[in-house]
């Protein structure tokens, strides 16, 4: 697969180490609880950034702040130089797409349809042309379908398009969710625990898929608990503990930091509240 699959309108790799996403002192409070406490993060073009931390560290909440699902209590998120409005739809349009920790596919749509929904924000035929089957509708509908089929192929679900999402094996559902996110033509992909619940082989496949996505020029932020996976994959890793950045550095630096290990082993088990 070539970059053309994922970026039909741009050509080739993104250049240099331009800053794509910058989170600036993002803080999120729920009542008295500070779930995310002035977190800074930058993501550059073509980079894979890992986000780790024990349960309840605020990783998913931070994701929700990035993608506009939450309005941060303070701090701001800039994407390609402009401040993002707190609306998921605008965020997607700007070029940031995500997957969910607990898979949130549209269960009663087929795989193909799920991916086609991802194309929604990149198409624009309205009610009128849809009703009269105008030329715009025809062109877009064909393009949408073809593109969705391509993406299914890309994530390795080539022949599965006709299956209902709810009837697919777990691993395929994860892939499908990634395909759906890719359908929005993102420049940055946010993956929330893409290998949760997978066996080693599936994890390996997922890793391979993420590399392939990165190779097409996308930047990726990934939340994971599987350390081996993270350290294999990521250029940089942030470790969040109790809403604060504990450490930021290369995979090697973070891996060897004793505070990380302590945070994982010493942290009390609290129930994480993903996206309430």
């Amino acid at each position, binding site marked *: 697969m070539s970059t053309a699959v994922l970026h039909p309108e741009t050509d080739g790799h993104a250049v240099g180490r331009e800053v794509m996403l910058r989170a600036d002192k993002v803080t999120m409070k729920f009542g008295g609880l500070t779930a995310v406490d002035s977190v800074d993060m930058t993501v550059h073009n073509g980079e894979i950034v890992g986000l780790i931390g024990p349960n309840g560290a605020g990783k998913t909440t931070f994701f929700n702040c990035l993608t506009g699902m939450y309005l941060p209590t303070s701090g701001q998120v800039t994407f390609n130089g402009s401040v993002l409005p707190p609306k998921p739809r605008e965020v997607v349009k700007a070029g940031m797409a995500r997957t969910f920790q607990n898979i949130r596919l549209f269960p009663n749509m087929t795989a193909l349809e799920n991916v086609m929904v991802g194309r929604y924000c990149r198409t624009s035929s309205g*009610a009128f042309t849809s009703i009269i089957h105008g030329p715009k509708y025809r062109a877009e509908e064909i393009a949408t379908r073809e593109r969705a089929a391509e993406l299914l192929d890309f994530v390795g679900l080539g022949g599965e398009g006709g299956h209902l999402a709810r009837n697919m094996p777990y691993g395929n559902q994860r892939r499908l969710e990634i395909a*759906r996110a890719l359908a929005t033509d993102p420049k940055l992909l946010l993956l929330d625990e893409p290998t949760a619940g997978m066996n080693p082989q599936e994890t390996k496949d997922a890793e391979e898929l993420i590399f392939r996505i990165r190779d097409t020029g996308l930047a990726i932020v990934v939340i994971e608990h599987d350390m081996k996976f993270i350290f294999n994959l990521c250029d940089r890793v942030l470790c969040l503990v109790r809403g604060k950045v504990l450490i930021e550095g290369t995979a090697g630096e973070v891996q060897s930091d004793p505070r990380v290990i302590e945070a994982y082993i010493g942290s009390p088990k609290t129930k994480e509240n993903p996206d309430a």
Partner: protein
Amino acid sequence: MTASATTRQRAYNVERIVGLVGGLIFAVSAFFPWAYGHEALDDMAYFGSPSPLQWFAVVMALALINCLAASLLEPTLNNSTGFLKLLGRISKRFGWIRGARALAIGMLAYAVLAILAVALELNGLVNLEMGAWVALVGAGIAFGSSMMLPTGRAPFLERIPSYPVLEIATIALLLMGMLFASAYALSQEDGGTFLMVLVFIGALAGFAIGSGFGSWVATAGRRHRTVLVSSAFLVAFLFPFTQNGSDANMSIATQVLIFAATAVGLNIVVGLAGLLDLGYIAFLGAGAFTAAVLSESAFATINWHPPFIVVMLLSGCISATLGLIIGSPTLRVSGDYLAIVTLAFGEIFRITMNNLDGSSGPNLVHGSSGIPAIPNLNFFGFDFGQSHVVAGIELGRFANYFFLMLVIMSIIILVFTRLNHSRIGRGWVAIREDERAAEAMGVNVFGLKLLAFAGGAFLAGFAGAVKAHVDVSVVPDQYVFLESAFLLAAIVLGGMGTVMGVLLGATLLKLVPEKLRFMSDYRMLIFGLLMVVMMRFRPEGIIPNQRRALEFHVDDEELVEDVEERLPYEFVEFEEVPA
């Protein structure tokens, strides 16, 4: 073969034969009188001369005999050679036992209904003749034995190769059959007769579905969708010509169409976008009041009478504006809260219309007296109030409006189905399935919800504009909560997210009470009970959108397999892209 297997085989054969005998008894009973008096049902007091209803009994019995005989002979046929073997192989594709069961249930209901009707109409069971009891016994035997038979395999008739001519001819014939069946059913003045005709049609439909013929027709219908749709409209168009110039049924048919058009509009909101609207009748009302106020009625309060096309568009726009207003809270509230908000809006509409009478508010609609004496429509000299003779058949006032509604209905159906199959329709499904995920995937959730409200309301406004002229007067009390509940019931009963379902639901809800006047006092009671029972056992309705059915049956694996095997019409077709 082991001994036990043999006995089981034999046992079932006994049941088949008993069932056959039951069918035979049922058929023969038709040639005996069922009732003592001539007034009951369609006069069943003759010996050797069956009434139409009795002939129907014969038809059902013959179909049952055919089913059981085929299933009985099938092993023999399969063991023989040549033509007989071919027959056997064709026979294997049918679900004979399922068909027989549906027929037997129908026969039993038919006989019981006949007995009840005769007893009620002639005051007492004494007035039943032996024939009716014989029919009951026959039906009972057939029912008992068919229930004891194993269902056997599912039919797979739809997988036989397609013969386009045969398929198209079948579709056309079936629809013509439906036309005559509905004309016949409607011409029945007697409530009992009407019900029995319905049972007969239902039993035949059950037989068709059970034996596999139904799914063959469905597949054929999918292959030749244009033929199906256009012949359906043709049949609807021909319907007034079957009425011999009488307007009595046309009045009901027109109201059914208006009701159905509104319900299809509501189905956009409920069935497609998955939002509940309990105040939908207000949109129909808004359309009707707009048309009334702008009509040339002496009671109209606005002295501007544009042509009807303009009025219709204006009605649609005003309803759509109301839809936008009612839809706007969807940004903030959802689910049950939204239902309550819409209900409150509906009540506000009704009370406001009542108050716009010059004393509690500006005099726009004369308050609770409403606007009467709305003149008939007149298109380029074609007066909708006059009868016209076409091909020797007189078409009355309601027939004229029926044709107009048919045009509007086709527009509404077009809007509904095309939207459903577009990017917008996919957006609605996504919102229904997981609103937050849809939002996170860039779907304009609020915009699409508003579109559903406004679009549905626009169509209802259209229908309302015609309704004002059909009804001649527009009164606020026509637009109460109960009517909204009825609209919703049409969808729930007929099927969420399908046009056919809503048409069926609307027809049943409007027609049955008209025909069954003798039980009209219990109409609402039955309506309430029906809602509860439907939600318990078939929440997706009689003819559901398959995706809606999936949503209502979270754990039904069989249904999932079924859907995946042949992706129904409402799904995007998937063909494998060559790598």
